[in-house]
């Protein structure tokens, strides 16, 4: 039984159809990478999963519970949306840490406000997560005192602190200097080894190849091709996929 089941998600912005019917599923512990050219709708898909955008059609289910059904959008109350969000975590391209809080407080803010345990439990858990992303010595630092790579690792710890079922990453290394991408990708790889279920939008083809169980190639709002890394990278079926991979190899 898949952990996440996305069926026929459609999303328009005004007259532009950005997602034209996206369906896929994800089992517990699996990692999916989403690749595709700029404007193909990757960010929009992640934003729909995190309920930052409301899809126009389709369903999203986690553990067989239907979280979203495009047929009755009107019944979707604010509280229900917030509950739904707790199944997902999102790591942004631009980190979006809270600048006025130090590393520890960034990680503990949401669990404390949402009373996810005693303060002591929350802080111990946060320490463990901060250690996991390798930043224990920066625990009292403020975001402005951290490098981009360090900020992104804090953002990962912050997302993990709410213990989401599925953690989504939107190009987590795109805003980083090339020499800083490695530290973030290693953390994500470490999460896979400890069994996290993840969806990663990325332009890092090597990383996608090595870490993913499944690759989704998106083009113009549809899933053009989906398969194992071997299928997609060694033996792509679609002309568009071949073309895209060709281009991204040339850039290297």
């Amino acid at each position, binding site marked *: 039984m898949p952990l996440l089941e996305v069926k026929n998600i459609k999303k328009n912005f005004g007259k532009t159809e950005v997602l034209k019917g996206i369906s896929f599923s994800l089992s517990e512990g699996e990692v999916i990478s989403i690749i595709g050219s700029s404007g193909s709708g990757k960010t929009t898909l992640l934003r729909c999963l995190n309920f930052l955008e409301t899809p126009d059609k389709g369903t999203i289910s986690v553990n067989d519970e239907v979280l979203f059904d495009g047929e009755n959008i009107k019944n979707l109350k604010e509280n229900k949306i917030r509950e739904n969000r707790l199944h997902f975590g999102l790591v*942004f391209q631009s980190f*979006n840490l809270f600048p*006025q809080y130090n590393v520890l407080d960034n990680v503990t803010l949401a669990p404390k*406000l949402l009373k996810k345990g005693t303060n002591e439990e929350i802080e111990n858990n946060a320490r463990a997560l901060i250690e996991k992303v390798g930043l224990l010595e920066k625990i009292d630092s403020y975001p402005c005192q951290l490098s981009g790579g360090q900020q992104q690792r804090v953002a990962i710890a912050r*997302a993990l602190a*709410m213990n989401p079922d599925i953690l989504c990453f939107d190009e987590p290394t795109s805003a980083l200097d090339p020499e800083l991408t490695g530290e973030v990708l290693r953390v994500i790889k470490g999460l896979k080894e400890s069994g996290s279920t993840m969806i990663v939008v990325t332009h890092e083809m090597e990383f996608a190849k090595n870490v993913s169980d499944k690759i989704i190639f998106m083009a113009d709002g549809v899933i053009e091709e989906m398969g194992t890394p071997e299928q997609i990278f060694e033996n792509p079926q679609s002309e568009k996929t071949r073309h895209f991979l060709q281009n991204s190899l040339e850039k290297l």
Partner: protein
Amino acid sequence: MFWEVVINLFENFLVTLELFALTLLFALPLGLIISFGSMSRFKPLSFLVKVFVWVIRGTPLMLQLILFYFGPGLLVTVAEQANYNNFFIDFMRDLNMADPLVTAVIAFSINYACYFSEIFRGGIQGVPKGQQEAGEVLGLTKTQIFFKVTLLQMIKRIVPPMSNEIITLVKDTSLARTITVYEIIWSAQDYIRNDGLLWPLFFTGVYFLAFSGILTLLFNYIEKKLSYFKV
């Protein structure tokens, strides 16, 4: 004679301070309301508010003072000739009879509220959308996001331009003299007329300097308190 002048000037500087304090008291909340109006998604409202702000910021405060000083009297005269009366005319009649300090507070408050509203708007809209969204994906409520995430960032953005504006207000209070508010500048001018003394007028500068100096220190302190993070 020297100390007598100093003390007398100080007493009239209190009027200046009163105008300053009352203007802040009314203009800060009013400015916040105006900024919400200008950010309203209801287009006709935001348009009207923006036009109002444009008119107030685009004309001299001196002119607005004079309008508020003579306007009510004119309106009342016209209304009486037309034998017309309503609560608004009554209010204008009261205003016409009121202490000019009241008129000055009203004109200053409206004027400064418009400047403040732009500062509030900049501070509110300046917080990146990503901050709100980061709070949302963590499952926080709108209220939690406002108080725990965005508010302090807004304050940090608002303090520097607000301190500029408030220090300008200290000096602008002297404009109230044009509508016969007997504040420090006017009382100093009386020394020219009555005693042929020029120095008291220049001595008023000491009071303005001292007060704006204190405010500068205060705002520097606040800015320093907020300097541990960057937005």
